């Protein structure tokens, strides 16, 4: 078996190659124009990749499963609801759209609140079977989705077009000022994370074993749920929903790294995310020439992977 450090170095090299390739490929003429814009996109991809990986891995540890992610549980749908409500009631020329900070803040706060209410209800007793949680997540997602569709039908078609660009994940029109805020949030999340990595490792043994070893389990679960929803909300508000990315990269990291250490798992998942995002974006821009978007591809692959995981899980529990 290869050592984990070797594997991490391998991933890091791959990620750096991807970033360099994306930054300098075919840049000839418009360096001064293209380079800074590419750097913002790379920044957004790195931030999103880390935020999604970090939040998914810790979420799966405390919910003791490998299929649910905050995005699958309806957080992404909540983002669509917030944006649609803003366009529906305030319109595309309102301050809620034009002021990026306000829009970003509203989306993040709404998603975090939604997550906390949902989790309070779902994870209070820690006893619901996983398929029930999945079902609830799907129902909430569908419900919010229908609400969005309903409102969108009523919206003025021109407004609707402008709304749509917000609902698709995209790295091509990231606002650099929001990127800085996101980096700040990620930084704070890392300072907190550094202090709880050991506790997370213990918590992966399950509630009772973790409590036996002196973890204040229920309070930690609440803290980590907040951490995880802030991270997902930040990434979604920054670039839009990429529902299945977290699921793919977290599971790939578990498989590839076979360790219980969260520091390694989170680092590995983050690197895999960056590789997938930068590599995928490169592919979309230069080979598909923007005929589709990255999130479509990731959700397509992720959806298939999701079904595969479900089938695998149902076989192993039988």
């Amino acid at each position, binding site marked *: 078996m290869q050592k984990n450090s070797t594997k991490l170095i391998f991933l890091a090299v791959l990620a750096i190659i991807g970033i360099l390739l994306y930054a300098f490929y075919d840049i000839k003429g418009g360096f001064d124009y293209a380079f800074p814009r590419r750097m913002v996109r790379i920044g957004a991809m790195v931030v999103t990749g880390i935020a999604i990986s970090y939040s998914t891995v810790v979420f799966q540890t405390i919910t*003791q499963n*490998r299929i649910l992610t905050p995005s699958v549980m309806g957080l992404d749908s909540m983002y669509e609801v917030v944006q649609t409500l803003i366009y529906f009631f305030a319109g595309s020329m309102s301050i809620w759209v034009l002021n990026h900070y306000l829009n970003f803040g509203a989306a993040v706060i709404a998603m975090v609140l939604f997550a906390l209410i949902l989790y309070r209800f779902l994870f209070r007793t820690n006893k619901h079977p996983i398929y029930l949680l999945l079902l609830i997540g799907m129902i909430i997602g569908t419900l919010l989705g229908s609400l969005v569709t309903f409102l969108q039908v009523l919206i003025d078609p021109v407004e609707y077009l402008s709304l749509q660009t917000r609902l698709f994940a995209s790295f091509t029109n990231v606002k650099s000022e929001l990127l800085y805020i996101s980096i700040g949030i990620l930084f704070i999340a890392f300072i907190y994370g550094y202090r709880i*990595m*050991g506790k997370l*490792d*213990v918590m*992966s*043994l*399950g*509630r*009772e*074993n973790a*409590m*036996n*070893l*002196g*973890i*204040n389990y229920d309070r930690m679960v609440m803290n980590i749920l907040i951490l995880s929803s802030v991270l997902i909300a930040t990434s979604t508000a920054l670039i839009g929903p990429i529902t299945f990315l977290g699921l793919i990269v977290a599971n790939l990291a*578990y498989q590839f790294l*076979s*360790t*219980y250490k969260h520091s390694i798992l989170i680092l590995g998942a983050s690197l895999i995310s960056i590789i997938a995002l930068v590599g995928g974006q490169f592919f979309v821009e230069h080979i598909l020439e923007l005929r589709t978007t990255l999130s479509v591809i990731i959700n397509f692959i992720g959806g298939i992977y999701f079904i595969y995981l479900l089938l695998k899980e149902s076989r192993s529990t039988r």
Partner: protein
Amino acid sequence: MIEIKELTKRFGKKSVVENVSVTIEPGTITSFIGPNGAGKSTLLSMVSRLLDADTGDVLLDQNNVKKWKSGEFAKRVSILKQSNYTNVRLSVRELISFGRYPYSKGRLTAEDDKFVDQAIEYMNLEDMQNEFIDELSGGQRQRAFIAMVIAQDTDYVLLDEPLNNLDMKHSVQIMKILRKLVDDLGKTVVIVLHDINFASVYSDRIVALKDGKLVKNGPTQDIINSKALREIYDMDIPVQVQNGCRICVYFNSHA
């Protein structure tokens, strides 16, 4: 000393543990026995703070267990639940090392390693210490988890049916180790057992529960007799003395 005082727990309308008071004598093995659903696991969970009681108190050294800091409590009392499962990629040695978390917070010192080595030796796990937990048999995994609480080195060790999944040899081995922990190291063990012969041969005291109520509490010899067992299990169980041990021959008795 652990004192359980008038402890009650309800799930819905049903009293699962009802007004139970027991004092756990230090330096003994106390067996909790009783039929399925009697409330043994629930009682143990409340003593070890995994579950909150509805009314009543549990005191550790005269202080309510709720008042203890989690980290400090974990150095005094350990608990192993009835069933243990993890989908995490973890070797036997890594699992046992988690037993040191209350002391090391994840950074093992040489002393921690000593405790881990000792627990591995106690449980005869040397050969499989580098194997992954999810690739072991049920009994092997159970032994690894027991080794984890031994490495935790607490004064009080609470074990909920630790002989689950174990063959005769390993069951006897574990009971002997628990005896050693008590007799040589002065620990206090509380153990839930279904095989009353293990309770009879290895424990100092027996606490019997039935329908959530305490029905018997006393030294082993006062409980292992046909009359008391009939009260607990509603079964006629002849008791025979062999090599100085009282053996309950329940295999063909009728209720």
